[in-house]
């Protein structure tokens, strides 16, 4: 009896809500005289390597005149608050902190970085709640198609934008390196069953075959797999001498150790998503020597900050001085997220007008510490493309292993630092 009344009551209030939805209390923008930027990244957990420079960057950005002095928007000056949230490398948690930023911190813009597991839930929440969002360090295919209800008929997003690159840039970066190592022309691919892995798996085979190579798929394994024997023996049987992948970092450590144990030593390993950062190299020790990967940022990039004009080299050195640790690529991307925020807010009339900020983000074009970023020329709406270079991990002077540029086909503005050496001679 009571249950029925309860259900009826619920039905009624739902009706009432639909009728007078406006009377529901909203969170809305602050309306206060300040701009709130939320920043979401995986500071702990398996993806922590991506975010290890984030605290430093947020502190650096806060200290720049552009942020400390307030952002001028529509002729008025607003103080800026940056609220930082950790996803613990968990997509559910990412979605939760994004909602907290919108509803409790009343963020005007959310910026987020590092892998689809972070950016996709955050962007989903922002798109649904109508809050502008910029993502970085995620292949655009994994960011764009994985969030579509029907990937075959993609719909552009209104509030969410990103900058990074896609599988075609990985191809443009890696294939020239393969060309310089005489090999059996068989390419071993280790791609898990996640947004990144599936994006790579659907795009790589064409690139590989167009370049005259043979594609050997190691299978769509689940993240967290602890045994790769079958994959390794498949690669050995197919005589693979080139190796590509996009796993989560701990899985690559396990796989690469097992590859060494079981005698799979490809002539050239060009990896993605792993060994991007010095912290990843510690777990593998000498096994990282001459592994090649992509680099979208580094002290060798001839770019300067749009906030205060400091160079990429200066930023990397400042990080090393402040933390005692080696520079990493996401320093530049995280920094650029705030450059983009600054660009968008200074260009609109009212910083709390979420539609206007989102529209501004979609037509932005500027040059900053990550080089030129142009949202008007992306492969799909809302995406700006960076041009990475090929690098190898080589024994360094200040640190055990350092990234050295070995191929600049995609971005000739970056000077080459050393010759390409086979991973396993």
């Amino acid at each position, binding site marked *: 009896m*009571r249950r029925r009344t309860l259900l009826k009551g619920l039905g009624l209030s739902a009706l009432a*809500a639909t009728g007078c939805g406006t009377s529901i*209390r909203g969170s809305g923008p602050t309306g206060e005289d300040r701009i709130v930027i939320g920043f979401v990244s995986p500071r702990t957990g398996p993806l922590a390597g991506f975010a290890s420079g984030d605290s430093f960057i947020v502190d650096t950005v806060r200290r720049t005149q552009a942020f400390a002095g307030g952002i001028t928007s529509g002729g008025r000056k607003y103080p800026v608050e940056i609220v930082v949230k950790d996803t613990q490398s968990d997509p559910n948690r990412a*979605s939760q902190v994004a909602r907290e930023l919108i509803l409790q911190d009343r963020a005007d813009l959310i910026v987020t970085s590092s892998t689809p597991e972070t950016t996709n839930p955050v962007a989903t929440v922002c798109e649904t*709640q109508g809050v502008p969002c910029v993502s970085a360090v995620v292949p655009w295919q994994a960011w764009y198609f994985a969030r579509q209800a029907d990937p075959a008929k993609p719909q552009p997003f209104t509030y969410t934008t990103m900058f990074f690159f896609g599988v075609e840039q990985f191809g443009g970066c890696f294939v020239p390196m393969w060309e310089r190592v005489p090999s059996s022309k068989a390419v071993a691919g280790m791609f898990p*069953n996640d947004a990144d892995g599936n994006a790579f798996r659907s795009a790589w085979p064409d690139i590989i075959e167009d370049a005259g190579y043979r594609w050997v798929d190691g299978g769509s394994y*689940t993240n967290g797999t602890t045994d790769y024997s079958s994959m390794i023996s498949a690669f050995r049987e197919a005589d693979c001498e080139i190796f590509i992948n996009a796993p989560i970092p701990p899985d690559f450590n396990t796989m690469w150790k097992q590859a060494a144990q079981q005698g799979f030593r490809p002539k050239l390993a060009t990896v993605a998503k792993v060994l991007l950062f010095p912290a990843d190299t510690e777990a593998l020790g000498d096994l990282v020597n001459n592994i090649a990967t992509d680099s979208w940022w580094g002290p060798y990039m001839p770019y300067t900050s749009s906030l205060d004009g400091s160079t990429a080299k200066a930023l990397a050195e400042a990080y090393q001085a402040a933390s005692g640790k080696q520079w990493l690529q996401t320093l530049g991307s995280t920094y650029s997220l705030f450059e983009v925020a600054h660009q968008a807010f200074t260009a609109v009339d009212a910083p709390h007008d979420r539609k206007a900020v989102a529209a501004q983000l979609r037509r932005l074009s500027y040059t900053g510490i990550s080089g030129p970023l142009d949202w008007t020329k992306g492969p799909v709406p809302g995406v700006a493309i960076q041009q990475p270079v090929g690098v190898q991990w080589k024994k360094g002077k200040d640190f055990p292993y350092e990234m050295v540029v070995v191929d600049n086909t995609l971005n000739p503005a970056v000077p080459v630092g050393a010759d390409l050496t086979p991973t396993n001679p």
Partner: protein
Amino acid sequence: MRYFAVFVLVLLASVPYTLGPGVEQSLVTLFSLVAMATWWNLLAGFAGLTSFGQQAYLGVGAYGLYVLALAGVDPFAAIPLAAALAGVVALPVSVAVLRLSGGQFAVATWVLAEIFRLAVTLSPGGDTGVSLPGISGYMPLLRQALVYWCALGLAAGSVLAVWLLARGRYGLAARAVSADPDAAAASGVRVARIRRVAYCLAAAGAGAVGALLFTHTLYVQPGSIFNVQYSVLMMFMVLTGGLGTVEGPVAGALIFFVLQQALSAHGPWYLVLLGAVGVAVTLFAPRGLWGHLGRPLFPIAHLRET
């Protein structure tokens, strides 16, 4: 008592008009905890089955909702369907798992959740997860309010349903099974059937919570929704509150919620505390806080020991 309960419900139902989205967010979490704990308690407290695999049905509910929403069903209308789906899935599964009891049942249900998780990762979203389709038609504020009311309805409905079950013939038989299965069987209680009903209902309840959480988070990932951590929470809420009472899980959910809000800023220490409290309660106060301190607001037993 009844009037008081109705008053509290009305008060809670008006939150979207009075206190706004910030409070709604926290209360949705609290309500889903209450519902989860209540259904877990039906299994453990009344049927004597400790499942560590209820996250399997959270996941079935969430992914069921995804499939239904893809097919064009309104996400909110699809929540009860997703719950029913979880209950139906549980039926054949119960044939296998109910052969076991105690620790073996616990681990077997856990393995089952892993099977479901791995099966779901074979879908297009893979390990990264999927966004909820068909939700963009709702205004953000209205959507949040609807999620809130669904959560409130689910929590209140779960407590009410378990109470009605527990105080009827079924509850009497279930408590006999939980106290001593052999003796219950000897006195004519159909043990297997009692347990099967509890298992399927608890699965449907978990399915509803899973679907609701999906409309709340808008994003679901296999590794998160199928995480054993959910069973950990269910267990501690029920244990601290009081196993086998109607009020216990609600009290336990409140305690957990307050602890989490107060202590989560200090990292996972509150979980350490929770684990320790769970162990201590099991060993030294098996009837839980409510069982020892509170008076039953929802009396279920005619022969309740005093």
